[in-house]
């Protein structure tokens, strides 16, 4: 046999050996893959089986919760009014008032009043009087400042009891003094000494 034939045989043997090695190794790898996929498929089957009733149960729970939310929203709006209801919700959950109620689409446009904010009496007095006026001026409700700048004394009068505001005629009149007063008093001769009355002098 010529040398070239021997070399050819050696080359073919090398190629076949490489084929056998790599293909057998690939077969083992594919077998491991198949085993792993079998385990994964078994677990996926368990997942599908266990999660099958979840959709129906969660849907039922959501239906019950939706009914509860609708009833509570309706009750709150009915009892407190739309504006105060939005203010209460916004006070408990800041920012929730902007979303409004689910069953009342118009509630999203209501500006929530500051129901949940607590101020001291002095702060409220300052707000009414308009001193510094940060609270009244920065009111999110957008209303005017409580104090009327031009009639500030009238605004302050609202702090006093009601008898001073609407029934001033019921109060006793102030005494009229001067030379034209209906009742004339004789001036005393000395400071601190009162002049004797006429009736006592005649007696």
């Amino acid at each position, binding site marked *: 046999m010529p040398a070239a034939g021997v070399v050819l045989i050696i080359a073919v043997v090398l190629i076949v050996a490489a084929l056998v090695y790599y293909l057998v190794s690939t077969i083992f*790898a594919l077998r491991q893959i198949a085993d792993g996929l079998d385990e994964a498929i078994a677990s996926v089957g368990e997942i599908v089986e266990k999660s099958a009733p979840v959709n129906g*149960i969660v849907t039922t729970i959501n239906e019950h919760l939706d009914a509860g939310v609708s009833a509570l929203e309706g009750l709150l709006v009915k009892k407190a009014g739309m504006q105060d209801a939005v203010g209460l919700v916004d006070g408990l959950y800041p920012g929730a008032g902007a979303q409004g109620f689910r069953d009342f689409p118009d509630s999203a446009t209501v500006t929530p009043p500051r129901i949940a904010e607590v101020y001291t009496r002095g702060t409220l007095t300052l707000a009414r009087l308009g001193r510094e006026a940060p609270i009244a001026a920065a009111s999110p409700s957008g209303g005017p400042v409580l104090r009327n700048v031009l009639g500030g004394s009238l605004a302050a009068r609202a702090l006093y009891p009601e008898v001073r505001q609407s029934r001033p005629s019921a109060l006793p009149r102030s005494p009229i003094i001067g030379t034209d007063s209906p009742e004339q008093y004789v001036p005393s001769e000395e400071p601190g000494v009162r002049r004797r009355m006429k009736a006592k002098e005649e007696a």
Partner: protein
Amino acid sequence: MTLWWIGDILLLVVVLPVVVYLLHGVLSEARGIVPSVRRIGAAAAAGSKDLDAAPLLLTTQDQVKKTIETVADYGGSLDVIVDDAS
């Protein structure tokens, strides 16, 4: 004879490296899939274990139903007791 030698050289220098390169690539990819498949299997097993608590949703469903009924009763009483806003 010269052609024979040329064929041998081509077989050893070209064909054999190409075959080895291609088979090595296939084997490498196949071995690279194995850990991924094992991770998928582990994740699926963990997901299946996490869903063991799914039957408790039945209890949750029952509790939600009772809670909503209680809230509805309470709301009905409030509707009678508290005056309307307008």
